[in-house]
C-alpha cells in the first residue's frame, strides 16, 4: 500500500509559503476525502486544508507555527493497515524547497520555460566577483536576492525554476551564463523568419564589445551606487568606499549600506528613553523593524490597490475652549511678549506628546532589497504645511521634541516667516517625520490630508469656531474644532491611529495634561 503525501498547496494566487496554525488530526487518525487536516495561515488568510486522500494518517511532516514553503510535504496518509507508530514530531522540510538552498544559485534559477513565457526568457547573469564593471551589461530581471517565482495562480504546483541540461554542451572558454543563448543557437536550427523567440532575446545585449566596456569602466572610477543609496550614505555620513559591496558589478546596495550602519550602531548602547538627543548621529535614532508576514502582505496589498492610496483617515471633534483660554493667557504673559501664539502651537505640542505615546506614527516605510522595514524615528522633525509664494511647502522643525513651548512658538514663527518670504531651503523640507497642516487658517472645517512622502501620518487642524455644545446636559457655546488624521495603513492600523488622535484631542481639550 502506497504512502500518499500531501504537499502544501498554494491556496491563494501566487502564495509561496504558509504557517500551519494547528493540526486537526494526529497519526493513527482515519480521514476521509475533504476531512479537515489542519488550519494554515497565509499572507492572505486563515484557511482549513481538506484532505485529498482517504486513509490513515501516518505522519505529520511539518510542525505547527513554522513557515512552510508551498510544495513541501506536510502529511503522509496511507491505508489503515499501513499505520505505523510514527513520531508526530516536526520533520525538516524538503531541502530543495528551502530558500537558502537556492540563495547561492541565482544562475541555475534563471528561467527555463521558454515556450510558455518567451518574453521573460532572457538569460540571467551571475554577478561577477570582481567589481571592475567590465562585464557585459546584460539586463537582469530581478533585484539581487529576490527569488523569482510565480506571481499569479500558477497551477496545481509551483514550478521549480531550474535550468534544464542540454544534450550538447558547447562551452566556450571563460564563457559566462550570458553566453548560453549563443550556445543554444549554435546547437539549433535557424530561427524561423519573422519571429523573435525569446530565448535568443538576450544574445544581442550579451555581445557588448570590450572597447565599450573599457570606456564605461573609465568613466566609473567612483564607487557604484544608486542615487537614493548615495543620498542615504550622505545623510548618515558614511563614505561609500568603506561599505563592503555585494551588488552587481560591485555596486553598493541599500542593503549593504544598512548592514554597515547596523554594525556601527551595535557599538553604542541603546538609549533607554524614547526621544534620543539631537547630538547623537541620526542613524542611531532610527529603529529598524523588519517587515514580515501579514504586515508585509498588508503593505503590498495597500500599495497595489488600484483605487486608493493606502491612506486611512479619521476625524474627531474637539472642544478646544481650554486651548483658546490657554492661548489667551500665553499672549498676555511677559514670557511670550512679541511672540505670536496660536492654537497651532498647542496642537504641535500635542502631536509631539501623542507621538511619544504611539511611536509608530512617527516612522517611515522603507523598502530594501532584503525586504521592507519600518524605521521608527526617535526624534520629531515636525513638518508644517505652509502656503507660500512658491506653492505649498512642508518645512519641518528639527528635533521639535527638545523644544520648550516658547522655543516651539519661536520656531513656528520663524518657519512661517521664512516660508512666506519664499526663502525656505531644501534642507528645511527634508527629513520630516510627521506633518501638521493647518487648513483651519483658511476657514475650512476639516479635510482629508494626504501624507507627506517619507512619513506615515499627518494631522489636519480645522478652523476653530463657536458652536452649540452639550456640557452637563446643557447646550452652551464652546470653541469647537475638528481634527483629521491620515495614516499610512501599511504601518499604522486603525486602533493605533485612533489612540494617537484621541491623545492629540485630549491635549486640545485640556492643555494642562502637557504638564505631566
Amino acid at each position, binding site marked *: 500500500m502506497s504512502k500518499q503525501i*500531501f504537499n502544501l498547496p498554494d491556496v491563494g494566487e501566487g502564495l509561496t509559503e504558509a504557517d500551519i496554525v494547528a493540526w486537526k488530526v494526529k497519526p493513527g487518525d482515519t480521514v476521509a476525502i475533504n476531512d479537515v487536516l489542519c488550519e494554515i495561515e497565509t499572507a492572505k*488568510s486563515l484557511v482549513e486544508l481538506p484532505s485529498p486522500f482517504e486513509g490513515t494518517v501516518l505522519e505529520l511532516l511539518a510542525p505547527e507555527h513554522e513557515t512552510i514553503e508551498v510544495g513541501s510535504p506536510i502529511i503522509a496518509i496511507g491505508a489503515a493497515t499501513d499505520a505505523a507508530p510514527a513520531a508526530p514530531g516536526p520533520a525538516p522540510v524538503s531541502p530543495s524547497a528551502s530558500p537558502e538552498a537556492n540563495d547561492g544559485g541565482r544562475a541555475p534559477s534563471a528561467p527555463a520555460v521558454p515556450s510558455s513565457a518567451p518574453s521573460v526568457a532572457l538569460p540571467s547573469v551571475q554577478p561577477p566577483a570582481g567589481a571592475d564593471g567590465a562585464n557585459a551589461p546584460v539586463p537582469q530581471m530581478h533585484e539581487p536576492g529576490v527569488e523569482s517565482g510565480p506571481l499569479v495562480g500558477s497551477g496545481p504546483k509551483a514550478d521549480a525554476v531550474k535550468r*534544464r541540461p*542540454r544534450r550538447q554542451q558547447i562551452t566556450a572558454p571563460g564563457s559566462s551564463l550570458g553566453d548560453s543563448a549563443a550556445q543554444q543557437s549554435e546547437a539549433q536550427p535557424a530561427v524561423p523568419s519573422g519571429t523573435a523567440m525569446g530565448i535568443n532575446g538576450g544574445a544581442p545585449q550579451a555581445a557588448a564589445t570590450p572597447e565599450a566596456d573599457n570606456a564605461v569602466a573609465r568613466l566609473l572610477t567612483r564607487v557604484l551606487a544608486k542615487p537614493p543609496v548615495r543620498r542615504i550614505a550622505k545623510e548618515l555620513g558614511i563614505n561609500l568606499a568603506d561599505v563592503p559591496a555585494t551588488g552587481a558589478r560591485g555596486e553598493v546596495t541599500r542593503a549593504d549600506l544598512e548592514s554597515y550602519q547596523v554594525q556601527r550602531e551595535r557599538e553604542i548602547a541603546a538609549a533607554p528613553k524614547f526621544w534620543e538627543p539631537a547630538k547623537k548621529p541620526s542613524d542611531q535614532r532610527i529603529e529598524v523593524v523588519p517587515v514580515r508576514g501579514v504586515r508585509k502582505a498588508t503593505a503590498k496589498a495597500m500599495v497595489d490597490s488600484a483605487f486608493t492610496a493606502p491612506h486611512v483617515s479619521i476625524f474627531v471633534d474637539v472642544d478646544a475652549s481650554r486651548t483658546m483660554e490657554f492661548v489667551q493667557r500665553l499672549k498676555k504673559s511677559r514670557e511670550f511678549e512679541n511672540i505670536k501664539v496660536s492654537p497651532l502651537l498647542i496642537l504641535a505640542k500635542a502631536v509631539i506628546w501623542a507621538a511619544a505615546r504611539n511611536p509608530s506614527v512617527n516612522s517611515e516605510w522603507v523598502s530594501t532589497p532584503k525586504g521592507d522595514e519600518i524605521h521608527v524615528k526617535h526624534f520629531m522633525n515636525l513638518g508644517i504645511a505652509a502656503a507660500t509664494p512658491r*506653492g505649498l511647502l512642508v518645512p519641518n522643525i528639527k528635533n521639535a521634541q527638545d523644544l520648550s513651548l516658547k522655543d516651539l512658538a519661536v520656531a513656528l514663527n520663524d518657519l512661517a516667516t521664512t516660508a512666506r518670504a519664499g526663502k525656505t531651503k531644501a534642507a528645511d523640507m527634508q527629513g520630516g517625520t510627521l506633518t501638521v497642516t493647518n487648513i483651519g487658517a483658511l476657514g475650512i472645517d476639516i479635510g482629508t490630508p*494626504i501624507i507627506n512622502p517619507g512619513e506615515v501620518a499627518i494631522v489636519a487642524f480645522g478652523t476653530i469656531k463657536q458652536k452649540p455644545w452639550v456640557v452637563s446636559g446643557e447646550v452652551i457655546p464652546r470653541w469647537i474644532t475638528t481634527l483629521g488624521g491620515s495614516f499610512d495603513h501599511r504601518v499604522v492600523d486603525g486602533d493605533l491611529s485612533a489612540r494617537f488622535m484621541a491623545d492629540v484631542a485630549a491635549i486640545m481639550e485640556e492643555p494642562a495634561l502637557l504638564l505631566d
Partner: protein
Amino acid sequence: MAGELPTTEFDDIPEELLDELEALAQERTEGHVNMVQLLDEEGRFHHRSHFAERASAWNGDELRGLYRDMAMIRRFDAEATALQRQGQLSLWVPVRGQEAAQIGSGRATLPQDYIFPTYREHGVALTRGVELGELLRQFRGVSNGGWDPTETNFHLYTLVLAAQVPHAVGYAMALQRDASRAAGAGRPLPESAAVVAYFGDGASSEGDIHESMVFAASFKAPVVFFCQNNQWAISVPTQVQSRIPLHNRAKGYGFPGLRVDGNDVLAVRAVTEWALERARSGKGPVLIEAYTYRQGAHTTADDPTKYRLTAEEESWLAKDPVTRFEKFLRAEGHADDAFFAEVAAEGDALAAKSRKDVLAFEPPSLAEEMQNVYSERHPLVDEELAWHLQYEAGFADADANAVEGGH
C-alpha cells in the same frame, strides 16, 4: 522629496443632491419595498406580485427540479473549493449563496437563447447542460475555455469584468439583423431568441455596462441585463459603488429595471421569464437586479472576514436560498425526506465524478495550443512549431518529459 507635496481633498457634494440621494437610498434599507419576492424567508408563498400567477402554474416536478439544481450546484461548489485547497485547482470562484439567482434565471432561458456569463455562473452552466467537470479545466489551468459554447449557447467564462456585456448586446443586435435579413430574403424567420448578460454589482461600475445599455436601449436589442448584486465587489460594498439601488439605473437608459429577491428562486425565474419574453417579442432590454449575497469568499484567494462582519454574514444565512426553498417544498407537500436524501446522494456522486474528472485532465500539448492561433492551419505556425519541437528535443531530459510546452 520636496517636489512631492501634500494636497487636500474635500467631498463637495451639494446639499440638495445629498438629500435626494438619501431619499433614494432609503429604498435600499427598506429592501423589500421595490423588490419582487414570492417566497419570504420562511418559505411562505405570497401573492403580492403579479409574478405570483406565473409561479403558481409550475407543477411539482418543475419545483423539485429547481431545488435539485440548487442543491447540486452547492455540492459541486463545495467540492471545487476543496479541490483548490488541495492544490488541484489554481483558483475557484465560490457561488454559495447565489444559487437561486443563477438557477432561477438559468431555468427561465430557452435553448435558443444565448448566455454570456461572468466567471461565477456555475449554476447557470448547470441549467444549460454544460458538463460541470468542464468548468474546472480553466481553473486548473489546462484550458482557456473548457466547453464548446455552440453546443449549449452558454458562452465561455469572461474573467475581465463586464467585458462580456458589450458582446452580449452585440449578439442581441445580430439576432435582430439575422431576423430582418431572413425577412427581406423571404426565408423563414429564425426562432425568436434573446440574450442574457450576467454581471455583478462591481462590474456595474465599468464603462462597458454604460455603453452596452445605451446601445441596447437605442436598438431595442433583445437582451436581459442580469445583475447579481451580491453586496460585495470583493471588499467594496455596493453602497460605495452606487448611491441608489442599481436597478434604478435602467430608468436613465429608458428601459425597465426591477429588483428581485435573488435568494427566491421562484421570483427570479418568474421575473427572468417575463423579461426574456418581452425581449424576444421585440420590446427591448430589461435590467434585473437580483438582490443576493455571496456567502463565501470572492475567490479562494480572498478572506472576507477581513472586510465584513460576522453579524452581516449571519443575517444573510437566515435568507439562504436553498433552505428557504426546502421549507417551501416541505410545507406545500411537494417533497419528502426521501427526495432530499436522493438529491444529497446525487450531489455526492456529482462531486466524486468531478473530482475524478479533474485529476484525469491532461495538460494540453504545445502543438494543440499553437493550432488555436488561427482558425485554419498557417504555414508560419507550422514552421514555428517544428522549430520549437526540435528545440525542446535538444534537452538531455527531453525523453523523460514529453513536449508539454516547457512544463
